[in-house]
C-alpha cells in the first residue's frame, strides 16, 4: 500500500494456526510477498470447527493479490459449510477485500475457449487456404482492371512512385545481385571443372556455365534475391499502412490504393527484374570465366569463342523472358500479403514471412512450368 516506506521490506506473507479456531495472517500480503502463500494456504490444516476466525491484525501490507488469496480461502471455507469471521483487518485492507469480493463472481465466470480438435483444425486450415486463393484471384483481377484503366489513360499512371520503386528494387539491388551471381558462376564452374578435366573436355566449361546460368540459374537467383529484398518490403510497407489506417485514408480521399501502391510496384519490378537478370547473366559468366582459367587453363579468349558457338540467342532470351513473369509474381504476392494484414505488429511480421515464402515457391513453380513448355516447344 502507498503508506509503505519507499523501499518496502517484503516479509513473506504467511498464515499461522492459533488457539480456538483462529487463523492468524501475518506479513506483507502483496503481490511480491505472496509467492509461496498460495501453497501455504492449500497445505494449511484448517481447524475443524463450525466457525473460524481469521485474524488480520498482523498483516503489514495488502494489495489486490493478497486480498484475492484471502477471499479465495474464505470462499473455500464457506463452500465447505464453515462460518468465517474476518477480524482485525485495517479499514483500508477491509475495503480491498470487499472490493475483490464484489468482483469474485466475474473471475469465476471467465470463459475458456475449448481448443479445436484435429478435424476442426484441418477444416479451418483448408477453409483459410481456400479464402487465400480466392482473395489472391480477386486481388489480381482488381490490379488488372486498374492496370487496364491506367493503360487507356497513361497520363493517370503515377510515374514518380514507379521511378522511386525502380530505384529501390532495381538500382539498389545491383551490388548484391552482382556479387551473388559472380559467386554462383564460380561455384558452377568449379564443380564442373572436376568432371570435365577427367574427360579432357575442358573447353566445354563454357557450355556448362553458359547454358545453366543463362537459361535457369541467373533468372531464378535474381528472382529469389528480389523476393527477399523487395517482396518483403512491399508486404511490410502496405501492412503497416493498413495497421495505421493509411490505406483507409487513401480510400476516403478518393485515391484507389491499388493504383497508388500496387500498380507502380508491379510495373517497376517488371522493368527492373529483366535488367537485373541481364546483369546477373554477365556477372555469373564472368565468374565462370575466372574459375575456368584458374582451374582448367581455359583463357578468356577461348572461353568467349566457345561461348558464342555453344549458347544460342534463344537460350539467352528464354532466361530473360521468364523475368517479367517472376517480377509480376513477386510484386503481386508481396502487395497482396500486405493487404492481408489485420490487427497489429504481429500480423505484419507473419504476412511478410508468408509473402517471401509464397513468392519464392510460386517463382520456382513457374520456372518448372516454363521448363516443361520450352522442352515441348523445342526451344
Amino acid at each position, binding site marked *: *500500500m*502507498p*503508506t*509503505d516506506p*519507499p*523501499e518496502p521490506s517484503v516479509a513473506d506473507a504467511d498464515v499461522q494456526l492459533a488457539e480456538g479456531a483462529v487463523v492468524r495472517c501475518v506479513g506483507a500480503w*502483496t*503481490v*511480491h510477498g*505472496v*509467492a509461496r502463500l*498460495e501453497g501455504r494456504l492449500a497445505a494449511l490444516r484448517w481447524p475443524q470447527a463450525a466457525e473460524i476466525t481469521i485474524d488480520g491484525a498482523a498483516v503489514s501490507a495488502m*494489495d*489486490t*493479490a493478497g486480498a*484475492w*488469496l484471502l477471499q*479465495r480461502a474464505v470462499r473455500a471455507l464457506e463452500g465447505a459449510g464453515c462460518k468465517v469471521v474476518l477480524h482485525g483487518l485495517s479499514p*483500508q485492507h477491509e*475495503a*480491498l477485500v470487499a*472490493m*475483490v469480493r464484489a*468482483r469474485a463472481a*466475474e*473471475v469465476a*465466470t*471467465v*470463459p*475458456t*475457449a475449448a481448443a479445436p480438435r484435429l478435424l476442426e483444425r484441418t477444416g479451418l486450415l483448408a477453409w483459410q487456404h481456400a479464402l487465400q486463393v480466392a482473395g489472391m484471384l480477386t486481388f489480381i483481377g482488381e490490379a488488372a482492371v486498374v492496370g487496364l484503366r491506367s493503360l487507356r489513360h497513361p497520363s493517370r499512371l503515377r510515374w514518380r512512385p514507379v521511378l522511386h520503386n525502380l530505384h529501390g528494387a532495381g538500382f539498389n539491388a545491383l551490388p548484391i545481385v552482382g556479387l551473388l551471381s559472380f559467386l554462383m558462376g564460380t561455384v558452377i564452374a568449379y564443380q564442373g571443372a572436376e568432371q570435365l578435366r577427367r574427360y579432357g573436355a575442358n573447353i566445354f566449361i563454357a557450355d556448362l556455365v553458359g547454358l545453366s546460368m543463362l537459361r535457369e540459374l541467373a533468372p531464378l537467383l535474381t528472382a529469389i534475391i528480389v523476393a527477399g529484398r523487395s517482396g518483403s518490403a512491399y508486404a511490410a510497407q502496405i501492412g503497416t499502412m493498413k495497421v495505421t489506417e493509411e490505406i483507409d485514408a487513401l480510400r476516403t480521399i478518393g485515391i484507389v490504393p491499388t493504383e497508388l501502391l500496387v500498380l507502380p510496384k508491379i510495373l517497376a519490378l517488371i522493368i527492373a527484374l529483366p535488367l537485373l537478370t541481364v546483369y546477373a547473366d554477365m556477372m555469373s559468366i564472368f565468374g565462370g570465366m575466372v574459375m575456368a582459367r584458374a582451374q582448367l587453363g581455359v583463357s578468356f579468349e577461348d572461353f568467349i569463342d566457345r561461348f558464342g558457338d555453344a549458347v544460342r540467342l534463344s537460350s539467352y532470351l528464354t532466361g530473360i523472358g521468364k523475368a517479367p513473369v517472376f517480377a509480376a509474381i513477386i510484386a503481386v504476392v508481396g502487395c497482396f500479403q500486405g493487404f492481408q494484414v*489485420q*490487427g*497489429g*505488429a*504481429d*500480423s505484419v511480421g507473419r504476412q511478410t514471412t508468408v509473402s517471401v515464402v509464397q513468392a519464392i515457391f510460386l517463382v520456382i513453380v513457374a520456372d518448372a512450368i516454363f521448363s516443361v513448355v520450352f522442352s515441348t516447344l523445342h526451344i
Partner: protein
Amino acid sequence: MSHPEAVVEVTNLCTRFGTTLVHDNVSLEVRRGEIFAIAGASGCGKSTLLREIILLERPASGSIRVFGREVLGLGDVEALPLRKRWGVMFERGALFSSLTVSENVGLPLREHTELGNALIDELAAIKIALAGLPPSAGAKYPNELSGGMRKRAALARAIVLDPELLFLDEPTAGLDPLSASGFDELVQHLKETLGLTIMMVTHDLDLLWRVADRVAVLGEGRVLGVGSMEELSQSDHPMVREYFYGPRGRAAREQAWKRK
C-alpha cells in the same frame, strides 16, 4: 521545494528538441495520494514531460525525483525497482497485439512475480473487471476491442501490480462523452480503493474539473500556474484565462458548478 510527501519532484527541467526549447525551467511536484493533472495546449510539452518522468526520454538539464530518488541517468537495472512501483497507461493503449487482453494484463505479473499461472489469470480477471470490462473481454485480442475498451484494458495492465503511482497519458482522448465520464468515475474509484497517486496528462476540461485535485498548466515552456481548478480559474495569466474561459472551458466549469 522538497515536500515530505512528494512522490514526483521535477526541478528546473529544460528540454530541447534541436533548437526549440520545449521546457524552460519547469518545476512541479506531485504529492502522495492526489490526482495531479498537467494541462495545456497541444504541443506544449505535456507528454514529453510525462515521458521524461517515466524514463523514456532525457531532458537537457534539471532534476526529476520519483519516490525521493533521482531518476535521470538511471540504467535499466537501477530503474527496475522504480518501474515496478509505477504503472503507465499510454494514449493509444499500447497493448501487445499478439497477446490476448488477459495475457496483456498478466504480463507484468508473469515477468516480475513468482505467482502461479492460475493465480495470475485470476488476478488479471479482477483487474479487467475493475477497469470496467466484461469478463468475456479477457480472451479477446486487442484488435477485436473498441477504442474505449482498449483504453480500459490498458488501464487494467497499468494497475495490475497495484502500483503506488499511476501515469495516464490522455486517458479520455478519443472516447465518446459517455465512456469519458465513465472513465472519470473509474479513476476516482481506483484512487480510493487502491490508494493510488495519479499523474495524468490531459486537455479534457471535464476530466480536470471532475477528478483532478491539482492542475499544472504548461505553456511557453513554463508552468503558468499550479493549483486546484477553482484557484486556476481565478488566475490573471492571459493564457490560463484563455484556457479556462474559452467557450469549452466555460461550459465545463458550469457543469462542474451544477454538480456541486
